């Protein structure tokens, strides 16, 4: 087990380096950089060659690629993400400001998704091929089909028309005013959570169906055990493994992938920062964000794999 964990951990390093190299090169192969984005766009009155060259030298963009990459990597080793080319602020600071919001939203959406998915999946499995089953399946496929930003717009609109009330549009940290904070974040969490419950619902359903056919369930039934007890103790426990994996992966995705939903709800999270970084051609910030998201993704992947292997002794480690 320890060998397996260490091996998987070590395998993360080359993948992350690969991600770093890939995004580093991708950003730099195309014409146009942050200096151009700042001076040439808009009024363009500062587009004198000397000013731009000086600015490039200040940002280190005139140095050879491998030096730029080396500087970035050395900084990373020291835990220093560098400085945003657009705002000039340290990237750690830029990310820290938004991370709390994105993390809270991801956790809330995951809770919503889990609360929807597990009961619905169980009910659908128990009443297989009935109208309930069909209704649950249509409900979950519909969740996958509806863009969460549209659902968000509809939610806001619904609140406005029915209750003449709008959720607060300015972010308040949870520890400052929990009520205000939840009043704002529950809506995007609902919109996104519904969407992400779809995959987990289907996973719960099929895992339950598989488990319910097992011999030990029949034995438990034959023993005359109470149905609820069979479900919780015998079936659910065994069916939860694949569901956990799906939920874990979605959580990783939610942390960095809420780009569009943040836009609708006017939330200044990591997704919005990412879109801005791309628009400004802010190399350092884009790099750092891509690496962060990839890191979380790989880490959660790793954690679910380990949890899986740990919870299910039948899995062999290769």
């Amino acid at each position, binding site marked *: 087990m320890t060998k397996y964990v260490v091996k998987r951990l070590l395998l993360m390093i*080359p*993948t*992350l380096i*690969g*991600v770093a190299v*890939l*995004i580093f090169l*991708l*950003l730099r*192969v*195309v014409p146009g950089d942050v200096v151009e984005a700042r001076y040439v766009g808009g009024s363009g009155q500062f587009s004198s060659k000397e000013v731009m060259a000086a600015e490039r030298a200040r940002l280190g963009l005139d140095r050879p690629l491998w030096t730029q990459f080396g500087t970035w990597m050395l900084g990373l080793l020291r835990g220093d993400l560098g400085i945003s080319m657009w705002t000039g602020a340290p990237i750690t600071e830029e990310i820290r400001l938004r991370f709390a919001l994105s993390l809270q939203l991801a956790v809330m959406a995951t809770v919503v998704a889990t609360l929807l998915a597990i009961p619905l999946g169980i009910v659908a499995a128990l009443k*297989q091929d009935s109208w309930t089953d069909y209704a649950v399946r249509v409900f979950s*496929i*519909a969740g*996958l*089909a*509806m*863009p969460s*930003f*549209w659902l968000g*717009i*509809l939610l*806001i*609109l619904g609140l*406005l*028309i029915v209750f003449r009330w709008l959720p607060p549009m300015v972010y308040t940290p949870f520890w400052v005013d929990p009520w205000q904070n939840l009043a704002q974040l529950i809506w995007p969490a609902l919109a996104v959570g519904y969407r992400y419950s779809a995959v987990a619902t*289907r996973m719960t*359903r*099929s895992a339950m*169906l*598989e488990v319910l056919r097992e011999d030990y369930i029949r034995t438990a039934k034959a023993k005359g055990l109470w149905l609820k007890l069979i479900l919780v103790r015998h079936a659910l426990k065994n069916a939860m493994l694949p569901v956990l994996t799906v939920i874990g992966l979605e959580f*990783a*995705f939610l942390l*960095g*992938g809420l*780009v*569009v939903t943040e*836009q*609708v709800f006017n939330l200044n999270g990591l997704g919005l920062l*990412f*879109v801005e970084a*791309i628009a400004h*051609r802010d190399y350092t910030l*884009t790099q750092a964000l*891509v690496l962060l*998201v*990839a890191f979380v*993704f*790989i880490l959660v*992947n790793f954690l679910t794999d380990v949890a899986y292997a740990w919870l299910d002794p039948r899995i062999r480690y290769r």
Partner: protein
Amino acid sequence: MAVTDRALDTLGEPAERAERRWLTASRDFVRRRPLGALGALVIVIMSVVAALAGVIAPYDPLATDYGAMLGAPGAPHWLGTDAFGRDVLSRMIYGSRTALLVGLGASFFGATLGALLGVASAYFGGRVDLVMERFMDILLSFPLIILALAVVAVLGTGIVNVTLAIAIPMVPRCARVVRSTALAIREMPYVDAARAAGFGHGRIIMRHMLPNVMAPYLIMLTAFLGQAILLEASLSFLGLGVQEPTAAWGLMLRGAAVEFAETAPWMAFFPGLAISLAVFAFNLFGDSLRDALDPRLRTQ
């Protein structure tokens, strides 16, 4: 050589019989999977609407009419007008073209490239396979939309670039699935036979292995379609996809649609409904097709 060549290459089925087989298979599909058939029906309707947009659309989708800004649904604008007085229905009809074009283009390109890489990876094995797999790992460590955004950052916006940006995240996903099927096919006697007959790598991959991974390829292709349409809408909504004044559903939900959501809700409502319906239909169809083609993946 000529004889072996034919024996190994042709599928040996007259066109007429193949046609009848298709017909029977389709009828069977409709009977056994009504939900999938419903999805297919919506897709067919959508395609017809997209193809005949010029005939069906009551107005020019780009024509502005400042006298009729933010008009409510009703005659003469059935689904109302937007902030520039453009007819919402006509823009939706033309928007189906964008959605289908980008959706089909991206899925086809992404799945095909993925299938080619997956089969090649399995066929060559060894170091090629290892390097390819690690590269796919790297691509897979990006969430779908983040990779698409990164590609847009590199290529720029516009319909062709957006199609590519959506296709690229699909490549590793398809390659993974196709590779696992191709690994088994590589061990088949007919591949050995083809190799013994002295065929080149390219020919064995293209004519002997690729046709046999059609089932996972089609499954991935149809599974991508809905996602691709959704991704295009998301990118356009962010302003990083298809650009104004082109009619695209995601674009219609952007800007004024949100600003005037209270006074003119139809601007945001109908295009979103179109996206949902299209993705819903593609997902229903894709799911049923998967169940029909691959019994192992069948959702019980």
